[in-house]
């Protein structure tokens, strides 16, 4: 079952929502069995109606859980789930990409810093009158 993993905290909104969803799924399974085994008796009808109402009630509950607004879901994750893939894979890959970009930029920043220093020195050498400006830039950017 999808809900095998126990829900860690039912107190948080997310936990509640998770729980509600697990219940709904449960109910839907029951309803499915009922429909499958539906005989047409009044009892069955009553049972079915009861279950349907239950589903509807649960649906209503889920649709009104406004506190989940803070959880933003990127489109890519949504696509992952829709395609039946694990969204954690996305998480991992994304983290990796960000790390690489970060390192690359870091290198660039260091390189530019050095270039700035070299250029600054040269400018000072050729144009001594610009020494102050160069130093100002250096302090502002280091």
């Amino acid at each position: 079952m999808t809900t095998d993993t126990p829900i860690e905290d039912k107190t948080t909104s997310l936990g509640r929502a998770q729980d509600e969803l697990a219940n709904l799924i449960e109910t839907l399974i029951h309803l499915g069995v009922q429909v499958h085994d539906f005989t047409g008796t009044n009892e069955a009808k009553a049972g079915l109606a009861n279950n349907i109402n239950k589903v509807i009630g649960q649906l209503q509950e889920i649709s009104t859980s406004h506190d989940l607004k803070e959880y933003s879901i990127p489109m890519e994750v949504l696509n992952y789930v829709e395609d039946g893939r694990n969204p954690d894979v996305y998480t991992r890959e994304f983290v990796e990409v960000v790390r690489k970009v970060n390192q690359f930029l870091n290198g660039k920043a260091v390189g530019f810093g050095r270039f700035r220093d070299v250029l600054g020195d040269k400018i000072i050498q050729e144009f001594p009158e610009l020494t102050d400006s160069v130093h100002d830039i250096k302090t502002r950017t280091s």
Partner: protein
Amino acid sequence: MDNPPELPHVEVNVTPLSDILARYSQHSFQELQTLIHTLQSKAKNDNAKKKAFLDLLVGIRQNFVRLYVLCKWARASKDIGKLIDVFVWLRGQNQKYADSIFELSTIKSSLMSAKLPDPDLTTAIEVLMTGRPQLPTHGLLSKKPLSPYLILKTLRNLNVSLSTRMALEDDLPPAFQNYKVEDGRVVFHVHKSFQASIAIADDSVDDSPFFLVDFEFSFALKDGSLIQASTPLPAVTHSKIEKLANAALAKEGLFGLYDLLHRFATTFKLYLLHRQLVAMRIGLWKGNLSHTYNAEKCFVVIKYWAKKPSSSKQKSTIEIGINKQTNDLSFRWVKDGKLITDHGISFDEFDGDEDNDDGEMINLERLIRRITKRHSELNIQQIYDDIADRIEDAEKLVSINREGGNCSIVFNLNATKTATYSLDALSGKGYFHDPTPLMTDTANSINSGEFSESSLKLLKFRLESQIQELGSMLSATGWINVDVVKLPSAEVSKLNISYAELKEPHLFSQLYSIRFFRRREWTAGWFLCVGISGFSRQVNWWCARIKSNLGQWSINWTESIKCGQNQHASLYRLEQDYDYSSLVELSRISAAKLLCHLIEEELIDKGAKIVTLDFRHPNVDKFFNNSKLKSYLPEGLQPKNEDDNSPVMFIDNNTLSQVPNCWGDLVLLVKMSSETRTMEMILLGELKQRFYAPFSGASGDVFKQDFSENTSIEVNQKELVFSIKSKVCVENNRSLSLTADLLTVLNKLTALITLLKLVGNDQTIKLLDISLSEVTFQYGKDASESISLILANKNAEDGSRMLFDMPNSNPHQFARDYLRILLAESLKVPQFVVPRVYGSSSAMSMANMPGIISPGGLNGFITYLKLTLPLSRAIQEITSKKAEFLKLFAKKASLTDDSTPPITINGIPCLMHDVFCYGSSRFRLEYIITRKSEDQKKSGKIERVKVAVDVDLRNRGSFLDANKSLFYVSSPDTTHAPTFLKELFAGTEKFEHDGKSVVALQKGAAVAYQSIHPLLLKIHDAFYEKYGTDS
């Protein structure tokens, strides 16, 4: 330090979880609602409904499982959100770096102009003057000058090293064998090509590479030709060749270097040749020369004689390129599209020589001139060969003249004139020396056509020029060219033209021309045909009669005028080297030939068999030598007379007029007199024997008579030769027969001889007088009993050929009319040959003369005359007696003189008589007796009684004959006849005369012709005895 600014939050492409859940819940509810609504319908069965319901439920559930997963993931969503922000920011930063780099490069490039110095006047002037500024050096240190000692030392060292290197060099290109080492370099001098210097970088002997230090060509272009002079390269080219040379040196050593430099020099040489050609093409050779220069493939193709039209495959070119074997420049000559290898011209000849002061190398113009000269020589030779292939003995007509360095072909037009044809070396076009318009036309035609036709065109030219030449000479000598005559080939073949000289007979029509000339005074249809050939020097001449029938010209008759020693000596030069005098002479000869032909034709037309020979024919000489006719030849017409071309016609006597008493052929001579434009014909014949009487007016034995102004006859009875001369004016005699007068005389002579032959054989006849037109002979006892037979002119009134005349006293006068008929009939007899000129004959009736004269002909006529002479005498006598009687009677009646009384009854004579002539063989004597009737009833009445005595000429044979013909004397009624007559008939009375008695035949009596005269007188007397006297 302040806190860094907050990361900007990214909300694009992000959806809150609550929204997702709410939307899907609502969606699911919506689905369910829809389904439950549809469940109410009964369209589907329960199972289907269940299925649909289940499907929906399963779908919803699956999606909610996904949502569950999402929820589960959402726990990390806040971190991920942060991470997204970081990521976006980092990218922003990255962009900023990229922008910075770009900006830096922009700054760098924008700072370029900062390098330039400030504008200043000095630089500006420099730029203006040199095109570019000479920027100040960038602080380079000035070098210390090398000391001469160092330089010399280095050079010496280099020399040593180079010498060593060169000595150690195993293999040198042959052209490099000649080198010298000086100034620290090895200098290779390749003759007429280039000079190159190489050196080494340092003085190490083994491996230091050579490199090129200097290069220059050893030739240059000056005034349109290559000369030996050093030509340094421009700096750019020099550095380029240096690079290439060094590469070649490094790779292939000195061989590579040589190859490269040699190729370079050769290519440059070729380029200079191209420049030479360009210069030539705007000069003298303009238009006649064109060339293609292909620098990449290293060749120059020169097309000379460019204006000369020829097919593209047959262009004549000189191709200059690099010989693959020698790697040097050489040329190929392509003549008319064919490569010529045996021309014997070498490129080296034009590559100058060492001794040449001006150092001239390749002179392309000389080469081209040499080749074009050779080409024209070959072409001229070709033309000559073509001509020689076409005609025999071509060397008589054409020859090649190689004098003066120019090859030309010389045509012998006639003995003195030649035409020289040669080819222009510049344009390749043919031209004639000293051209006439015809030559110019010919040259143009040759130049615009195919070369292979040149020979034919030249031969045609020769023909044309001959035609012109001859035509002008002929017209100068009075001949008129007649252009309209066009003989079809079938007619031409009648002329039997020999063209053995022509090896290709099909060219005959093109190279042979027949021209027609006539003289003003000539009769229409007479022509002088001149056959002129382009292939031999011979000119053929014919005189001919040519007629046009419906535009088709045909030759009626032609005779070749052969020229040569055996023929017309005066025309000896005519055959090849005609001159004016011979052409004038030609008119005489041809006119003579034509006239002779006309004469011949006329004679043949009259049935004569003729053999015509020229006077110089040996047979003619032979004939006259054996004949007495020779002395009768007129002056200037003698056999063996070299200049004489008069024809002699031998006419078979049996075929023309059958002159009796003539033996052998008649000889007709024709002599032309060009001055008086007359033609004299002389007909000679030999007689077998003398005539029987002298001619009237003849002096001795020679008789001459002029018939007309132009016609005369001479008969020499001693020599037994007759000659008839007739002069005919050629100009006035265009339509009349030429021989008419001659033949008239001949016919008269024939008739005369025939007549004489008849008359002369008879001993009883005596010829009194002979002339050509008249023969008078006596057949009786005296001159009164003679008759003249006159040969009538052809225009005699009644068409009879012969008339007669007799003296008035001739007893035959009474039968004159009958004699005329008789004579005409006698001439019908074949024995008396009737010349056709007088063809008509008498149409008189023969009713009264059945067959009496038949084969005897004129002979019969004469016999008749002789037979009837005694009768005529008798009749004459009796008739005269009547006249006497009538005279007496008249006298008596008027004078009443009865001294010589005729017996009368009542004034009417008792006896009258009359003579009647019924035809030529029946006569009647009629006696009219007037007397008193003896009848009792009619007593006293006067009655008239007629007694007739008939005399018939009877033949015992079929024809008249002196021995066999008799007179039959009879009377229809003898009642009143005298007794003598009755007894004569009864045989009781014998009458004898000259030993011949009368034969009594009861009703009549037959009597010989000699006895008829006395008998008739006796009968007459008997009548007068009985009735005319008073008894």
